[in-house]
């Protein structure tokens, strides 16, 4: 067994020191009655070659973006990943260590996370950010819990344009707390109906959630939302699932958001069948002691040299137990590092250029779809199209041309079963975009 380093001879000597004859005796505290007597029903060890072949075989049963042009978005985005990210995170120094409990031996991780926190603050234009949460959806759930704690109110206002899976996760987290949800309608533009919001916002409202660009790709009027929130004493929670958009769109912080959460997968993390992803969480300085999750802070050592530590631990489960701001312990550290490398690679120019390419390539499709677009509001790189055939059937056709089509919305919204959510990124081939448009608009062309 190549993952074990003790020889039979050594085992014997160690047992002697331990004072038992057979290793099984070390398990004597487990009552016989609950012992497993049969061998595990798990196959014999497989060699490296066999394991590799097995997984390669499975990989061939998937449709992956290295072989197909994909227009799926909806919370997971197919973006370019600079090669150096994997070089950095493949250093065992980064990926095989634990949460940096012992700062003297973990300054590499700590400084990287401190930089990550800074980058997230800069991008969202917020004051503080944590070291990551599991994903965008649980980050939203944590934000909502924080808002309830802070405001001591119990109503949450949630628009239809929130990612339906985010809504579900949020519902799971608040299910057993004394919290009510109010739905918010959409306007034809595909944005939140601000009049409806104004009416819904009462003094029992803890927070309003708004996603922008929203699930349908439409850019929300965040400034108006935060203004209404301020007036009602509710907190505004802005959700971003397509983080690249922040390279171009006005940052939620500038629009007076109280909490900004979202998914950082677009920043250098492979689509990876949806995980590991990266929940980010940013808020105002005044709320930092109510923030969930780990935070790295700057300090000095006993000789006055700058160093970094995990801090504000009194918010956390290992100190506060049931009084903690969250139960989270392990987070998505390495994904935060990937994100930091990504953002530092792109830098000021690159993040803008990348966002612009997404905007313009999506617009290139948008223009071709014309009146098939369901919503009139401005979009970033996603859009909803109305189909005159079953979207699933269209997707089947697209697949034969090497294209993975969009997301049939009927899966989430029965009244939208003729609609499809499309995403265009810098990765899509213009020819495939054009072909997609052709097929969607039925100007069939021999291919």
């Amino acid at each position: 067994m190549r993952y074990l380093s003790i020889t039979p001879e050594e085992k014997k000597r160690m047992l002697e020191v331990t004072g038992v004859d057979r290793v099984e005796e070390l398990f004597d505290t487990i009552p016989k009655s609950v012992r497993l007597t049969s061998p595990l029903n798990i196959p014999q060890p497989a060699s490296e070659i066999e394991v590799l072949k097995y997984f390669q075989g499975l990989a061939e049963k998937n449709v992956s973006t290295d072989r197909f042009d994909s227009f799926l978005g909806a919370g997971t985005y197919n973006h370019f990943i600079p090669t150096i990210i994997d070089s950095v995170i493949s250093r065992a120094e980064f990926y095989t260590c634990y949460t940096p409990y012992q700062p003297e031996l973990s300054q590499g991780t700590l400084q990287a996370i401190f930089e990550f926190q800074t980058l997230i603050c800069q991008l969202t234009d917020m004051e503080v950010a944590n070291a990551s949460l599991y994903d965008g959806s649980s980050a939203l759930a944590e934000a909502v819990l924080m808002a309830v704690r802070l405001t001591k109110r119990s109503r949450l206002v949630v628009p239809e344009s929130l990612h339906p899976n985010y809504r579900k996760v949020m519902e799971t987290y608040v299910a057993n707390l004394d919290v009510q949800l109010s739905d918010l309608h959409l306007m034809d533009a595909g944005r939140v109906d601000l009049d409806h919001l104004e009416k819904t916002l009462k003094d029992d409202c803890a927070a309003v959630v708004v996603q922008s660009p929203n699930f349908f790709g439409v850019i929300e009027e965040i400034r108006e939302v935060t203004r209404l929130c301020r007036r009602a004493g509710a907190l505004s929670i802005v959700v971003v699932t397509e983080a690249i958009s922040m390279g171009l769109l006005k940052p939620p912080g500038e629009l007076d958001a109280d909490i900004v959460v979202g998914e950082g997968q677009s920043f250098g993390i492979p689509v990876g069948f949806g995980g590991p992803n990266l929940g980010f969480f940013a808020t105002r300085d005044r709320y930092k002691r109510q923030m969930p999750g780990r935070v790295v802070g700057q300090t000095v050592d006993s000789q006055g040299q700058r160093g970094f530590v995990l801090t504000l631990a009194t918010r956390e489960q290992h100190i506060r137990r049931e009084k903690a701001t969250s139960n989270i312990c392990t987070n998505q550290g390495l994904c935060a590092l990937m994100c930091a490398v990504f953002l530092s690679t792109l830098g000021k120019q690159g993040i803008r250029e990348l966002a612009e390419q997404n905007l313009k390539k999506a617009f290139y499709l948008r223009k071709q779809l014309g009146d098939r677009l369901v919503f009139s509001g401005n979009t970033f790189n996603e859009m909803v199209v109305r189909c005159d055939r079953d979207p699933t059937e269209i997707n089947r056709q697209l697949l034969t041309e090497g294209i993975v089509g969009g997301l049939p919305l009927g899966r989430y919204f029965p009244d939208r079963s003729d609609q499809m959510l499309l995403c265009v990124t810098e990765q899509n081939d213009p020819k495939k975009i054009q072909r997609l448009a052709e097929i969607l608009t039925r100007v069939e062309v021999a291919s």
Partner: protein
Amino acid sequence: MRRTFTNFGLEESLIFQKSSPGKSAYSLPGLDVEDTPIEEILDPDDVRSEVSGFPEVSEVELISHYTRMSTWNYHVDLGMYPLGSCTMKYNPKLNERVARLPGIALTHPLLDEELCQGNLEILFRLQEFLEQLTGMDGVCLQPCGGAQGELAGILMVRAYHVQQGRPRRYVLIPDSAHGTNPASALMAGYEVISIPSDGEGRIDVQVLAEKMTKDVACLMLTNPNTMGIFESHIEEISQIVHDRGGLIYMDGANFNALMGYARPGDMGIDVLHLNLHKTFSTPHGGGGPGSGPVACKEILVPYLPTPNVNQVGDAYRLSSDESHSIGRLHAFYGNFGMVVRALCYILTCGGEGLKELSEVAVLNANYIRSRLEDHFHLPYSTPTLHEVVFSDALQNKRGVTTLDIAKRLIDYGFHPPTIYFPLIVRGALMIEPTESYSKEELDSFVDAMIAISQESLEDSEKVTGAPTGAKLTRLDEVQAARHPVLRWSPDEDTAT
């Protein structure tokens, strides 16, 4: 041979401090569609100005930035990392390779089921293996960490009780439990009742019996517990809890002690979580991502989070029955990449290998215990499995604390054990060697511990002043918390 020598390391400022206009590390192809001006696409009011403060550096600088910083970390590939409760075992390179296969890593989570059968098989097989290993009837791989697994489990307990008529009010948790247990119980809407440990370091069954009322939804038990001690009265405990309509949740963080020897499903456990990043060798990544699958008995299967994977004929399908489920915990399927690695590990080890590694993990811990018990205070004489908890009681007489011992270990070239946990041991030193390392490495650790114990008696300043051999000396955590500096900004930057 000595373990350590002194060497120089290279300093490195923050990336923001290296930035200057005109450098860049990215490259993008030119825009390959017509270039519509932004104003024609967006409302100019929606467009931001440049991201102020964002770094501008070259690729060369980035690489040396991270390379230098990386050298400031201790890590598993360097040597033993006996952080108790964290199971810092070797992270196989094969796992990493498999998880990066393009046909696996580059798949979108919202693909039609037909287009991701390979991934669904991965999920399904791991579900099955974990059921086998734990003796449970259902598994959901969605939770992203142990804590989220706990939340899932307790929510399932609650859903079960609701179905029985009422959610009940309390969760019983031993005082030796990990902090995530009470925190998770609270998030599920429960109040926590703490159960003391007995003189053997086990849950006090007497007290448990008293506190276990019809208002208690469940007991959250860690087994082996955080002392590394198996809760031998498990059957009696099970009887007590179940007799009064309660359920038992098991924190499976210590599952590395049990594989092939005992299954929670055979000892009255109703629901538990595992940590793939502990027992199943997926890397900790400096804090994650991990994965905390939840497993349960038949009666709780309807409440598992959705979606999960089923086999229908030759094909794998995502479950669609959400009627009783507690719902979703993740936008997609959790930390799938960790699932791939764990499956790779299980296939590599095989059933017999998993048993052998639990065996060696337990042997190693007991060997360390035996070699150290003359030098460090052992708060409980009860036999232990995969880890052992000492205290600083002996050294404390000379003013040396657990923190000092931990920091001094750094000078000896080791990552310290977990300290001050579990809370029931004053000045706990929680040592978990895992099965990975050689006897030479274990002995070297033991020798260092003994030397530190000696120093504590003879030359205690060496210990209280440690570390002196690392990049930094002891860090001021109080200042960090009192005057939090949580991000770099040009003005606050005192370090340039």
